[in-house]
């Protein structure tokens, strides 16, 4: 795994190698092993390398044989062995054993269509000297990040936004619509970012800069085709397991040792169990444990460790730890966050690195593609209730769904009806499944300053999303619709980014995700919804496929979403636990930045400081305000 960056001057002015070097330096954490810069007149490519495959010879930027192509690549092409064999049969000669060189050869063969052949996670740029064009691409699901901007006549790109901001001419401004999106969806929706004029190349997209123009297009999209082939549950389960076995096998390809995250949930246990099937070698696994039993899963982690005989390492997390590392978390995430959940993952990657590991496999993606999240169940129950609103028993299912949310237990039906949006109008809304979450989150925009609210008048993140849904969306069943909304929004924008790539790469740790092998994803998109969520049993088909692989205690446990202590982490004995908290939330500071209303922030601050009942909304508000203030302080400053 690595970091990439580069500059292309559309007006043909020469690029300064020092600027590219400076850009690369900002993302040193992504690749501490080596750095490389290539410049050729109007173009410059930068690279920071984390050596994993062909440690000795995989330096970048890397040229092809006649040096007409130069690549800067972040990621892994897991099927590079098979692709290379095929290319060699067709006369291609290789100088290294790296997957990077395979990309160059495949680009020589297929041009921009080369990406269709890759099985992996990537963000890369290829400078094509002969055709005088720059080609960029990002993997199908958005595991690896890629950002770009056009500044006057200069095209600038980077794995992280801080590399782009290293160019002195790039203006640093908050994108207010991006901020509105985060305070709705917990993340921005690509191509928008939290920085004005800096764009994210969406997952499954490629980009070409040619003849002074920038063109982007999707080469792959989430789709849920009708499955005409009548397969039995057993057949689907077998196909799924077969592909998962292979997806894991090729993700073990590495010249350095590979470990695994083991959360205590089904998905990471399945991945670890499959690794065990492929290799008898010693396997290190890693997890977070929480001091607070409300969030802790160590009981299940230990069941899995005993069953799978791994060498397990834990990092214990307290609220103080979260508050201590939070500014660094925001520096790496490069966007406001509404939850503290990235912080423990930041500390976990530090543990992995300290154990001498650079690569970990995990179960990321299973919940999205196979229907694991409570939000899918919640939508099913809400729809069931909404069809007979007068039922006294149907809403009780909601209370059963969230046994860990004590505040729901004593709520009357009329309140549940209002909070869970089950009216006729809600049932007809295309965003039905996510309305309770997004409506509740949107309430925290009440903390925006009057000026900001005036600027945003007329903009609705929900309306924008509803009007940009794919044409096929209306034809999908309800469960599929909710899966799509989750997989296209929160997943790339937050889970794979703020909790994923950014927290791993903060300590130079690469995550690999067998459930995100596109063959697995494409199969999952065809599995009938009733086999993913059987009545209210989540990921039913995965449980069925892996019964023999994982301990029964893990399969039969009720799903616990990964959560971490939120706003209470930042206070201790009625005071802010870290000086920066008080500094960032001080009335004068809030007034100066102008994003939030200082009076309201002051009252929220006092309320949380006092302790007592603090709800989801207040937690999100505090985290959102604090992290936005940190983003402004760390990236925008006094321009």
């Amino acid at each position: 795994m690595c970091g990439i960056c580069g500059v292309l001057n559309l007006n043909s002015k020469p690029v300064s190698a020092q600027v590219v070097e400076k850009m690369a330096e900002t993302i040193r954490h992504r690749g501490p092993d080596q750095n490389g810069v290539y410049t050729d007149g109007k173009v410059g490519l930068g690279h920071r390398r984390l050596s994993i495959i062909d440690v000795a010879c995989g330096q970048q930027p890397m040229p092809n044989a006649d040096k007409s192509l130069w690549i800067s690549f972040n990621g892994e092409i897991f099927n590079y062995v098979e692709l290379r064999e095929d290319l060699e049969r067709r006369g291609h000669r290789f100088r290294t054993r790296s997957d990077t060189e395979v990309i160059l050869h495949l680009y020589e063969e297929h041009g921009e269509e080369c990406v269709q052949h890759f099985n992996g996670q990537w963000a890369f740029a290829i400078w094509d000297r002969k055709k005088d064009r720059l080609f960029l691409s990002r993997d199908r699901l958005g595991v690896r990040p890629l950002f770009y901007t056009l500044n006057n006549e200069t095209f600038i790109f980077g794995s992280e936004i801080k590399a782009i901001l290293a160019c002195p001419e790039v203006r640093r401004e908050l994108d207010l619509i991006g901020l509105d999106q985060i305070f709705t969806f917990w993340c921005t929706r690509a191509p928008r970012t939290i920085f004005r004029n800096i764009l994210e190349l969406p997952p499954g997209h490629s980009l070409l800069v040619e003849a002074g123009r920038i063109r982007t297009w999707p080469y792959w999209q989430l789709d849920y085709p009708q499955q005409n082939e009548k397969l039995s549950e057993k057949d689907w389960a077998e196909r799924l397991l077969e592909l998962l076995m292979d997806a894991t096998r090729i993700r073990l390809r590495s010249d350095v040792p590979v470990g695994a995250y083991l959360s205590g949930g089904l998905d990471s246990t399945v991945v670890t169990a499959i690794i065990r099937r492929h290799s008898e070698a010693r396997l290190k696994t890693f997890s977070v444990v929480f001091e607070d039993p409300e969030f802790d899963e160590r009981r299940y982690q230990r069941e899995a460790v005993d069953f799978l005989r791994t060498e397990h390492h834990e990092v214990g997390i307290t609220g103080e730890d979260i508050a201590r590392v939070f500014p660094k978390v925001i520096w790496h995430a490069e966007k406001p966050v509404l939850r503290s959940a990235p912080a423990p993952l930041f500390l976990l990657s530090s543990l992995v690195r300290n154990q001498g590991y650079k690569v970990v496999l995990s179960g990321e993606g299973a919940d999205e593609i196979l229907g694991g999240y409570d939000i899918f169940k919640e939508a099913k129950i809400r729809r069931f209730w909404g069809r007979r609103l007068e039922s006294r028993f149907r809403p009780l299912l909601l209370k059963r769904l969230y046994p860990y949310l004590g505040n729901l237990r004593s709520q009357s039906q009329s309140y549940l009806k209002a909070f869970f949006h089950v009216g006729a109008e809600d049932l007809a809304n295309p965003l039905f499944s996510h309305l309770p979450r997004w409506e509740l989150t949107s309430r925290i925009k009440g903390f925006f300053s009057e000026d900001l609210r005036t600027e945003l008048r007329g903009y609705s993140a929900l309306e924008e999303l509803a009007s940009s849904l794919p044409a096929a969306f209306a034809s999908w069943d309800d469960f599929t619709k909710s899966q799509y909304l989750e997989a296209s929004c929160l997943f790339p924008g937050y889970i794979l980014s703020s909790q994923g790539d950014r927290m791993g790469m903060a300590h130079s740790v690469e995550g690999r995700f067998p459930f995100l092998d596109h063959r697995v994803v494409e199969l999952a998109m065809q599995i009938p919804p009733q086999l993913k969520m059987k009545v209210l049993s989540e990921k039913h088909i995965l449980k069925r496929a892996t019964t023999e692989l994982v301990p029964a205690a893990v399969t039969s446990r009720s799903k616990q979403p990964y959560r971490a202590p939120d706003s209470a982490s930042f206070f201790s004995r009625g005071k802010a636990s870290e000086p920066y908290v008080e500094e960032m939330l001080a009335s004068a500071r809030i007034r100066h930045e102008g994003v939030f209303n200082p009076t309201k922030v002051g009252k929220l601050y006092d309320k949380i400081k006092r302790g007592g009942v603090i709800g989801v909304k207040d937690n999100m508000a505090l985290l959102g305000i604090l992290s936005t203030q940190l983003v402004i302080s760390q990236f925008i400053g006094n321009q």
Partner: protein
Amino acid sequence: MSSTGTGKGSRMHTLESAIRSFIVDNFLFGEGENGLKNEDSLLENGLIDSTGILELVAFIQQSFKLIVEDEEIVPDNLDSIDKIAKFVKRKDEARVRNNGGKP
């Protein structure tokens, strides 16, 4: 329940003020104090969520020394300043009755 006034109307007014002040501080965070009418619905105005109900119940129990039963947590009792004040008053009167007329 404490009151600085002497008449029934004044006591009700004090009660409403205390509830208003709690709602403005905890759900509105100081904003729109003047815009919130006593009869405005907390639900329809998006002022309250599932945790907010619990905060409100905790406030009523602590400030007015009352026990709020689960079945009483319904919008008819808690969805506006007016409704909350009437609910607290009813509960308080019932308590005094059950206590043989002693406060």
